[in-house]
């Protein structure tokens, strides 16, 4: 067994956790796995193919029922756990992390405070490939960008894989499900799709942990993560809200300060 598998096995043997949420080999890739016995710990793998943000399972009732969990956590997963803590979805010592970097050591972090401390030493930014794509988008004119997104989002079928795979989309009753009023059309026509993705990006602005899982989850390859990354970067640039910190979160999108610049209102 490698270090990850060994540490998972120990946690399960000691009864410290009842389940280790990680990745295992799947058909042609990696799949999320829920290891509940020490003997099964050998299934756990971590490499660059493990892209799903496992923190999304921390809100799933069927997973919570399994008991106390440890999550095999790459940096975006760690960021998600801290953000969930800041939003009072996770208690400080409710979930453990087995912090991993591909090819690097495994660190056992028992509290959100420990995770936050560990994150301080890690870069907080999207993957390089996504940064390049963001640059390409930023270099477009507004009409070019509008045309790009209109074409991409026209293909969207509203399967909500993006929402379901996102750890920060944990609302039990999503805005999309509200029908009084029907804020966003249910139907997957061009306008409805545009509205859904814009609303989602706005709801994530300032909260997105920049994992890119939403875009990778899209079965049709629509790069929706670029929308949320773009919104996240804008919030960081304009409001200085950046990094994932616990304590009282200040959401730029829902906080008013008298000194806020209001050049758009005359």
């Amino acid at each position, binding site marked *: 067994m490698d270090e990850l598998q060994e540490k998972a096995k120990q946690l399960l043997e000691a009864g410290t956790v009842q389940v280790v949420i990680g990745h295992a080999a799947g058909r042609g890739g990696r799949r999320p796995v829920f290891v509940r016995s020490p003997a099964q710990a050998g299934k756990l793998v971590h490499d660059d193919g493990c892209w799903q943000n496992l923190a999304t399972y921390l809100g799933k009732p069927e997973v919570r029922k399994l008991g106390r969990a440890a999550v095999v956590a790459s940096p975006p997963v760690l960021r998600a756990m801290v953000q969930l803590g800041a939003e009072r979805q996770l208690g400080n010592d409710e979930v453990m992390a087995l912090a991993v970097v591909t090819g690097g050591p495994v660190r056992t972090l028992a509290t959100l405070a420990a995770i936050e401390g560990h994150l301080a030493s890690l870069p907080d930014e999207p993957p390089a490939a996504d940064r390049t794509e963001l640059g390409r988008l930023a270099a477009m004119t507004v009409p070019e960008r509008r045309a790009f997104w209109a074409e991409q989002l026209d*293909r969207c079928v509203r399967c909500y894989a993006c929402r*379901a*795979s996102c750890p920060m989309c944990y609302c039990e009753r999503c805005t999309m499900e509200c029908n009084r009023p029907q804020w966003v059309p249910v139907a997957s026509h061009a306008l409805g799709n545009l509205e859904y993705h814009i609303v989602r990006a706005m709801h994530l602005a300032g909260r997105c942990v920049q994992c890119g899982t939403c875009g990778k989850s899209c*079965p*049709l390859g629509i790069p929706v993560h670029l929308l949320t990354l773009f919104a996240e970067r804008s919030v960081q640039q304009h409001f200085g809200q950046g990094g994932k910190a616990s304590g009282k979160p200040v959401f730029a999108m829902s906080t008013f300060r008298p000194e806020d610049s209001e050049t758009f209102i005359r």
Partner: protein
Amino acid sequence: MSPEYQIGEGSLEALFAAITADGRRIWGPRAAAGCIEIGEIRSAGELARDQVHPISSAKAAAFPRVEKILSYRMDGKDVAIDDPPLPARPTVLFGLRPCEARGFCALGTILNWGTPDRFFNARMERTTVVSIACTRSDEACFCTAVGGGPDHPAGSDLLLHPLAQGGYDVVVLSDKGRALVALAPDRFEPARGAARIALAKIEAEFQAQEITEQLPRLFDHPIWSEQSLRCLGCGACAYVCPTCACFDIQDEADARRGVRLRCWDSCAFRLFTLHASGHNPRETQGQRWRQRVQHKFSYMPERLGVLGCVGCGKCSRACPVDMDFKEHLTEIAKFS
């Protein structure tokens, strides 16, 4: 079935031109955003060839993701209801996998159960399906486990077999297929028994009948919650599936006019069966996963006489968390 014709690779462009000149649109596998999808193509050059499967199915040609089923006008207390005009633009689906074509049989059976669905039927009447038999398969394919195969004819109007020399054998399966050949008769030569590229070998790891027999007794079994632990409850599998037909009905209106739309829906969503009171008959993802399998492999065969799965594997390929349907179904089939 023996082929009547063969058509050269180089003739496809002319065939497409003839189809377009006839006022028909062409849909087929094409590249988009790093994947292969089914969409409108205007030339044979746009046709994607190297994939085993496009990520999406062609069902949108007959069962679009948004369909207007009614419109109405409101004027004070008065309301007038209008029937939407039936879709009229003929379509050729070119380059489908035989399993995708077979999916239209199940789709039509569901939508026409008990009462006719004029919208689906109108589109199907105007749709000609040209499939290409499979010379390759991948790990997600399981057509042979559900009564299909790499050259199964059901649902196709023309079935093409790739030839070793290039080009295709053409098997004519219907009047619609024959009518398509007649659009470019000089491009279809009589078949000469040219050597075909061997069909893909897809080993069946189970038989659908085994699952159908097991399902009633497995209803309350923990296997459903176990298999669906990683399921996120999105609609990816249902929306790429050639046979999934579950839908929602939504009104979009202002004070003066409105439309009633039929939209794709998925049994995997929590909202699908949620009562207004808050009660949900399928509250857990395990119950919803069970519904998916039971519906396709038990209720549909028993009530509609047709299986709800063609073994294309698109569900597995589309799933963001690798819910591998072949793997899950094999486990269910072998359960003892």
